[in-house]
């Protein structure tokens, strides 16, 4: 009887005070939780979470110096309306226009080997920026450099994929 009485009182209190100072803090807390979870699922694009390094604080998730703010600039932003899945792919270094539904292209991948690449005209270097994976660095004019993600960043990006939101989704 006592518990029922307390619940009744609490329910009445919520009903009576909903507009008067109850709904606003609640919505603020929900909003805060939502943005925190979203930020975590996107591997902390705001770089809020930091570890204390040798000299300075380093981001926990993002070791790469990406230019997320630049991509969010209105002139650079995709014309497609932003979605959470789209943001996941952007965090993974994939631009929305990069994934194109098309016929299977015939290409020989037999010589896509580090040894073959290094014996030829290109160099290979590791990168920690997902947007540069399998891209060329043209800043070194002598030899184009093919960039490959390191294993640590791949393990980090696995978190994005294991959220389950990246599967079977066309942007």
């Amino acid at each position, binding site marked *: 009887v006592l518990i029922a009485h307390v619940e009744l009182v609490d329910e009445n209190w919520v009903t009576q005070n909903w507009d008067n100072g109850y709904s606003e803090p609640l919505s603020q807390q929900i909003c805060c939780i939502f943005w925190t979870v979203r930020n975590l699922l996107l591997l902390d694009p705001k770089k809020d979470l930091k570890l204390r390094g040798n000299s300075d604080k380093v981001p926990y998730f993002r070791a790469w110096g990406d230019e997320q703010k630049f991509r969010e600039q209105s002139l650079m932003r995709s014309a497609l309306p932003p979605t959470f899945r789209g943001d996941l792919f952007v965090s*993974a270094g*994939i631009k929305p226009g*990069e*994934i*194109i*539904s*098309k016929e*299977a*292209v*015939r*290409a*020989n*991948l*037999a*010589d*896509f*080997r*580090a*040894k*073959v*690449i*290094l*014996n*030829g*005209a*290109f160099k*290979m*270097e*590791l990168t*920690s920026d997902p947007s540069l*994976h*399998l*891209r*060329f660095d043209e800043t070194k004019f002598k*030899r*184009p450099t*093919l960039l*490959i*993600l*390191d*294993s*640590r960043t*791949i393990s980090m*990006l*696995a978190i*994005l*994929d*294991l959220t*389950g939101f*990246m*599967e*079977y*989704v*066309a942007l």
Partner: protein
Amino acid sequence: MSPFNGGANQNRHLELPTFLDELLLSHSLFFGRSTPSDNVMKSKYGGIDLKIIKDYSENWSSSISAVHISDFPIYGTRLQLIQQRMTDWRPLRAYHAIWYRPYRDSMPVYAFRFAILFGLVSLAGLGCGIYGAVKGSSGGHN
């Protein structure tokens, strides 16, 4: 057909999500079949974990030799560009032709190298001939 339910899931029996699968498969492509020497791997590619690649190749991936570009619905365009660059690369300068071998159609470069070698041997022979002639003529005077 969505690019995400295309070749990758039809051709291969992997149950990992597609994006992670493609990342690991790209590592396996470049470092799983043949790796540079241990010293090069340690000095330049220390960030590559060969244990993960080996585990992926042995336990998670089907035959890597059967991998096709359609197995990369996400990174397919980038791989296609790499392939294009490898096919199109030609030496623009003479020293490029000496030091770097094209990935396709290497015969002209080998012919160029052979021509340079032949030219150097000819020059050396000519130099030796001139030296011998000069020495012979100076010896004759003595």
